[in-house]
C-alpha cells in the first residue's frame, strides 16, 4: 500500500475514524497495531509471521535479559537475539547472493553442483524492522533502556506502519517512552506541509526524473559524458527525493498519530566532507551503524589502522544492508575509502568551519563529486555498464550531441527544469530552515495559496508512470 494511492487514503480515513471514536490509550494502541499489520499484509500476508516472530523473540529475550544479573548469561541472550534477527535477514536477503556466488565460483573451478539456488522473495522492510528490534535488545543489554513489560507497546514499536517498510529506523529508546504517554491525535499546518513536501519530492521530482535516469542507465554506453553526468546528478536527486520524501511522509503521519520521529535527512548535498555527509544522509541508519557497529568494533579508540579497518567494515556492512548485490558492497567500499582518505588528509588540521568561503565551496563540490561517483555504483547492478558509466563520468569526452537531445520519450529538458526547480527549492529551504517549517509558520492566506499551487502543479506533473519507493527493496 503506497502512501499516494487511493487504498492508503481509504485506510487513513478508516483509521482516523476509528481513532476518533476510541479515546482511551490502550484501545488506540491496539487499533494502531491492527492497522499496522493490515498495512504490512497488503504486500504479502504471509510475511506478517516474520514480524510476529521478530516481535516475540525480541520481547521475550529483552524481558529475560532484564531479569538476569549474570553478565555471561546476558551476553548469551544477546547472541541468541542477534542470531535470530540476523539469521532471518541473512536467509531472506543474502542467501541468494551467497549461493549464487558460490555456484559461480564452483563452476569457474570446473565443478557442476547438483543443487541450485533458491528463489526467495524478499519481505518488504525487513532490513528496517530488524535493525529496530536489534537496537532494543542491544540497548537493554547495555542497560541504556529498561526492558518493556508491555507486549502491546513492543509489538507497536516493531510494526508501527508509517516507518515500517522504509524507515526512518526508530530506536526503542526514542519510541517506547512515547508509548507510555496517552496517544493523542494532532494535526497542524506544519505537519501537513511536511507531508506535502514528502509527496512533492517523491511524486513530482523523483518519479519524473526517474524516467530519464532509467532511460540513460539502461544502456550507458550509448550516451556521451554530458548525458551520463546529467543522469548521475538526476539519480542523486531522484534517490534523495524518493527516500527523504518517504521519510517526510512517515514522520508527518507519525506526528499526526501523536509520535515524534527523528529527522532522517538534513540537506546532504551541501555536505563538505564524508563525515558531514553521513550526519546528513539517512541519519537513522548512519547513527545506528555508528552506535551499534563502529563503536562496538572499537571505533577510533585503537590506532590509525584499526580506525580505518573499523570505518571500512562499517561502510561495507552499510552497503550490504541495502541489498544482496556486489554493487552495494562496492558502494559501501567506496564510501569507506572516502572516509579513510578524508581522515588521512585531515588529521591534525583545522576543521572546515574555520576555512574561507572559497574553500568551503570547493569542499562541497569535491565531496559531492565523490558522492556522485558512488551513486553510479549504487544505481547500476550490471558491472560492465557500471564501469562504462564511471569511465564516462570521470573522463569527460566533450561530446555534446545536441541534435540527439529532445528526441524520444526521455524528456531531457523537462527533467532539466525539474532538476533546476529542485536546486532552487533546496537553496530556499537552506536559507529559511526547512520549507515545511517556513510554510507552517505563515498566515492562512499564504498557506492557502501554497496549497492551491501544489494542487495545480501536482495535476500537471503527476508522473505518467509511477514507481514504488526505491527503498522498499531494502
Amino acid at each position, binding site marked *: 500500500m503506497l502512501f499516494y494511492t487511493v487504498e492508503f487514503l481509504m485506510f487513513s480515513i478508516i483509521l482516523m475514524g476509528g481513532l476518533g471514536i476510541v479515546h482511551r490509550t490502550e484501545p488506540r494502541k491496539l487499533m494502531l497495531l491492527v492497522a499496522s499489520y493490515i498495512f504490512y499484509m497488503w504486500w504479502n500476508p504471509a510475511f506478517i509471521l516474520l514480524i510476529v516472530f521478530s516481535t516475540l523473540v525480541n520481547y521475550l529475550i529483552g524481558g529475560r535479559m532484564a531479569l538476569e544479573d549474570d553478565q555471561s548469561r546476558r551476553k548469551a541472550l544477546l547472541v541468541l537475539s542477534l542470531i535470530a534477527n540476523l539469521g532471518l535477514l541473512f536467509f531472506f536477503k543474502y542467501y541468494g547472493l551467497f549461493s549464487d556466488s558460490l555456484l559461480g565460483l564452483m563452476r569457474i573451478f570446473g565443478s557442476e553442483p547438483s543443487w541450485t539456488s533458491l528463489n526467495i522473495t524478499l519481505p518488504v522492510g525487513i532490513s528496517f524492522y530488524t535493525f529496530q528490534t536489534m537496537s532494543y535488545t542491544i540497548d537493554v543489554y547495555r542497560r541504556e533502556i529498561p526492558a518493556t513489560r508491555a507486549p502491546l507497546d513492543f509489538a507497536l514499536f516493531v510494526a508501527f506502519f508509517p516507518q515500517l517498510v522504509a524507515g526512518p529506523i526508530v530506536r526503542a529508546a526514542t519510541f517506547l517512552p512515547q508509548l507510555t504517554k496517552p496517544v493523542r491525535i494532532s494535526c497542524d499546518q506544519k505537519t*501537513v506541509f511536511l507531508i506535502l513536501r514528502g509527496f512533492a519530492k517523491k511524486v513530482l521530482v523523483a518519479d519524473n526524473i526517474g524516467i530519464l535516469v532509467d532511460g540513460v542507465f539502461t544502456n550507458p554506453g550509448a550516451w556521451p559524458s554530458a548525458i551520463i553526468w546529467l543522469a548521475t546528478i538526476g539519480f542523486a536527486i531522484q534517490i534523495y527525493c524518493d527516500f527523504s520524501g518517504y521519510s517526510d511522509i512517515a514522520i508527518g503521519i507519525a506526528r499526526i498519530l501523536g509520535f515524534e520521529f527523528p529527522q532522517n535527512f538534513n540537506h546532504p548535498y551541501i555536505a563538505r566532507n564524508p563525515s558531514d555527509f553521513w550526519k546528513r544522509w539517512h541519519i537513522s541508519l548512519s547513527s545506528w551503524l555508528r552506535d551499534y557497529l563502529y563503536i562496538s568494533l572499537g571505533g577510533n579508540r585503537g590506532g590509525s589502522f584499526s580506525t580505518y579497518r573499523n570505518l571500512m567494515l562499517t561502510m561495507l556492512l552499510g552497503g550490504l544492508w541495502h541489498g544482496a548485490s556486489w554493487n552495494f558492497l562496492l558502494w559501501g567500499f567506496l564510501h569507506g575509502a572516502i572516509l579513510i582518505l578524508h581522515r588521512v588528509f585531515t588529521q591534525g588540521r583545522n576543521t572546515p568551519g574555520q576555512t574561507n568561503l572559497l574553500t568551503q565551496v570547493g569542499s562541497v563540490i569535491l565531496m559531492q563529486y565523490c558522492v556522485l561517483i558512488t551513486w553510479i555504483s549504487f544505481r547500476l547492478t550490471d558491472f560492465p555498464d557500471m564501469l562504462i558509466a564511471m569511465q564516462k563520468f570521470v573522463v569527460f569526452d566533450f561530446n555534446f550531441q545536441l541534435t540527439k537531445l*529532445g528526441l524520444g520519450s526521455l524528456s531531457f*529538458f523537462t527533467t532539466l527544469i525539474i532538476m533546476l526547480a529542485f536546486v532552487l527549492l533546496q537553496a530556499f529551504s537552506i536559507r529559511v530552515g526547512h520549507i515545511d517549517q517556513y510554510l507552517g509558520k505563515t498566515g492562512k492566506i499564504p498557506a492557502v495559496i501554497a496549497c492551491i499551487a501544489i*494542487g495545480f502543479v501536482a*495535476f500537471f506533473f503527476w508522473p505518467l508512470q509511477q514507481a514504488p519507493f526505491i527503498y522498499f527493496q531494502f
Partner: protein
Amino acid sequence: MRMIEDNEKQFNGLACLWMAAAILFGVGLALTLSGWIFEKAPSDLRRTSVLLEALADPSIQPSYVVLGNSVVMSGIDTRLLSERIPGNPLGLNLATTGQNPVDSYLYYQNLPDDLQLVVQFTLPRFAANRDSIEPQKFNAMYMYGYRPDPTTQIRLGDIFGDETLAILQRSELRQRFESRWAIQQTADNFVRSLVRKDLKFETYTFDLYFPNSGAKRIPESQMERALNMRYNVSAHGYPYTAEKSAFFVEAARRVKDSGKDFALVISPLHPSVHQRSGEQWYSEVREFFYGLSRNGNFAVIDAMDAVPEEHFVDALHLSEAGAKVLTEFVAKEIRRLNLEPES
C-alpha cells in the same frame, strides 16, 4: 513566538480541512484549464488535430488517403502518387509518428463518404507484437475532439479485449488528467523546435501530402548500430498473433462496408534484413499477409523490397529519392490491382 508554537501543537482540524480544500481547488483549476493548455502546448502529436480538421473539412474531398507511421511520412508523396494515377485524384497523406494500423483504424470512422481508397501501411512486426491503441496517442486524438463511435469501440474491444476498450471508454475527467503528458513535454518540444531546425516542424505538422520530406542520412558509423537495434528481433522470426489477423480482416471490412477499397501495404525494409533474417523469414511474412488478403478479400502490396539500400536515411526512414521510388512503386501496384480512385 511561544504562542505561535503552542498554537501549532494543538489539533487544528479546521486548518487541515482548509488546506485540503485549497489543494482540491488547485487540482480543479488545473482540470478546468487543462483543455486550453493542451491546445496551446507544443506537442509531438499536434498533427493529429490537423488530420482531424482536414477530415472534417467539407472543402477538402480526397479520393484516397494513405495511413501509417513515420516511414509513410517520409516515404509517400501523395502529390506525386496522384500524378501517377489516371485523372490525378486528390490524395492525403494522413500518416503520423508511430501511427500503427490500430491507431489508423480510429480515423476510419471519420473518413469522408466520397473517399474511394484507403492505403494502409504496416510494418511486418506489428502483426506479431501485442500493440493495440497507444493511450497517449488516443488521448491526443480525444483532446483534439475525436470521439470513437460505438462500432469502433465494440469491434476493437472484441478483438483486443477489455484493456483496449477501457482506453476507448475513458471518461472526460480521466482524459483531461491523462493529457498532462503534453504539458510535461512542453519544454522538450519547445527546445527541440529551437535546436532541431533540420526536422522542419511546420511541414511535419501541417503538410497533408508529404510531411517529412528531406530527412538527412545518418553517418555510416551509426547505421550499423541503428540496424542492429531495429532488426535484432527479425533473426528469430515473428510469431504472428491471432488477434492481429482478426484485426486486419476487420480493418478491411470496416473500410469496405463503407463502400471504399482497402489496400494493405507491407512497409519497405532495409535490404540488410535479407542477410539478417534470411529468405525464409520473407516467405513467412508474405504467406501471413497474403493469407489474410484471401480471408478478408482485400489487396496486399508487398513493398518490402521496393527501395534500394542507398535511399534509406537510417534503419527505417527514406530519403526524398527513396520516397519517389516508393511512391512510384505504390502507384504502379494500385494501377496493377485496378484500385485507381476516380478524381
